[in-house]
């Protein structure tokens, strides 16, 4: 990647915002985001991550993007996983072990049902996208 000028940076930001802005009901492809700070990994997030990718392969779904993020803050509920699927509200699941990870793929992604007992509240509003200048 060549070094950016001011113009390049602004262009890049606008482009990426378009891609990242597609979430919830407006997105075409689902996203599964696994909290992988030290805390999540210690609680088994790597197993969860693998279980999710394995389950996706098993059911033959290819248009789901699985990615990592930092700590979502809910230490009591690690590992935590956010699921953003078309036509469904974005949801954060807590205490997602490998078994629950599989369930997310089978129930949430394929059958479009939310899963009992694992939903956590979003901790706070998003100051980047929800507040003005």
């Amino acid at each position, binding site marked *: 990647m060549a070094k*950016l000028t001011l113009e390049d940076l602004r262009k890049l*930001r606008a482009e990426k915002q378009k891609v990242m802005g597609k979430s919830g009901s407006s997105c075409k492809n689902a996203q599964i985001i696994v909290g992988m700070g030290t805390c999540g990994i210690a609680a088994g997030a790597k197993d969860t991550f693998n279980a999710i990718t394995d389950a996706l392969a098993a059911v033959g779904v290819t248009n789901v993007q699985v990615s990592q993020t930092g700590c979502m803050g*809910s230490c*009591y509920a690690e590992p935590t996983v956010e699921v953003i699927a078309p036509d469904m509200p974005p949801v954060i699941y807590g205490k997602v072990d490998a078994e629950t990870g599989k369930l997310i793929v089978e129930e949430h992604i394929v059958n*479009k049902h939310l899963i009992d007992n694992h939903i956590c509240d979003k901790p706070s*509003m998003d100051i980047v996208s929800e507040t003005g200048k």
Partner: protein
Amino acid sequence: MAYKQYVLVCGGTACESDKGPALLTALKKAVAQNGLVNDVQVVRTGCFGFCAKGPIVKILPQNTLYVEVKPEDAEEIVKEHLVKGQVVSRLLYDKAQSKRNVAIDGIDFYQKQFRIVLRNCGVIDPDKIDEYIARDGYKALEKALFEMKPRDVIDEVSKSGLRGRGGAGFPTGKKWEFAAVQPAGQKYMVCNADEGDPGAYMDRSTLEGDPHSILEAMTIAGYAIGADTGFIYIRAEYPLAIQRLENAIKQATEYGLLGKNILGSDFSFNIELRLGAGAFVCGEETALLASIEGKRGMPSPRPPFPAVKGLWGRPTVINNVETLANIPVILTKGSLWFSKIGTATSKGTKVFALTGKINNSGLIEVPMGTTLREIIFDVGGGIRDGKAFKAAQTGGPSGGMIPPQFLDTPIDYENLSKIGSIMGSGGLIVMDEDDCIPDVTKFYLDFTVDESCGKCAPCRIGGRKLLNYLANICNGDSTEKDIDKMLDISNAMSRASLCGLGQTASNPVQSSLRYFMDEYKEHIIDKKCRAGKCKNLLVYSIDTEKCLGCTACARVCPASAIAGERRQPHVIDSAKCIKCGQCFEVCKFNAVTRS
């Protein structure tokens, strides 16, 4: 087919005890009766916090929050909200209670948390610079380099009211100004990521979740004070944070956001990591600088302050991770926006690592001025197992214990110091009735004594003496005079120690003596530990009427101190008993007593 609406019913333990299951059944029934089974899914969730207002029902995708919902309300919620699309206003969360939050931007939200520092944590992939950029990343740097003079940047930070989040709360803008007014020449910008308090992990999580925000803030600070080199001093015990920082530095350099002529401007800045070996004292700024220089990590007297004479004798600004994470937001949203959040003297938010005997432990960020009660009972979901709150320790081993009478004190720098604690870096450890105050105090002292560098006598000798007195109290070998001696030593340590470590090491002792003297006296005079933590003060015995002679206790006793025939009452030989408590745990008939 996806459902059109979702009804989330909280299933935390506090709500469970409060008719949660009955409510779930009632809602499912009402949904079925109204013919909505294919359109609405009723889901039981984990705990949402907010337990004082439970049970809670949330409707998605509208995000409507109903509180204190009773099974009788199910029909109305379904008929009005789900069928007609009309909000049942009598069940909404009372907005009057969230007035302080509403003031921010006039946006109405019920959460107690407000995330500035943690804005990207758990949202972006920390290994992808593009995701950071998409969320307004490096926009503040753009603004600083192309629209502001260094002087303007400092003014903006000063006006925001941001104060250092590492503990002492020194105004950040002022610190930058001290370094900026030094004659031009080599200057340094240092990020203090040497987080060492037991139970604290705010900085680690920030660096792991959003490394670019720190790089951006350091570059802005470098521009403001005229430094071309930055160091991040981070402990080697944080391998994942180090790995993500290294990756972030590499990406930013490739994009030209670090290095020579950033974004084509004439400003150049580089950042290097320096790994610490994990000594607590190296979080103190003069010791930290010594460590970066390759010397033994020991503090030195101030003045001269690092802003005047720091790294290799050059002007150096040292900011904590959390302080820096605020900077990009202050520049993009403006100092006015930022200064509206918080209290009169403490602006913005504070991140806490909420741990201990709390239901929902976690990394939280709340506006300054939030009360301890809101943090523990609303955000944290209350004390584990419904036990009674005894105290909270803020500021880690340098802080103090806050007793129940201050649960409603708004948390800011001034209020915390008034009640004998400190903001500290953000560890918040909650204690319940099963925690013994002298024992917890001993734990903190043990830590600071272990971490004392030994350079100055008040800290080296005073800390050890205090620890001995505390050990004696917990062992039942103390007299009332010891308390006076502890107070004397504590005083001397806070006044005469060379650095912050020694000056604050006695804070747990002073604050616990101030608020929990009765518990100390119980230990000293009655030789009693009400929490059952101090082993030497405990006596185990077997109630011969309840004991059936099952031999479970005798089999588990590691000291062979329990004797008795099968089906006959057993006896504990107190001379042999090592007070491990295993017999107490294993007895199914409550025949083993502890006093």
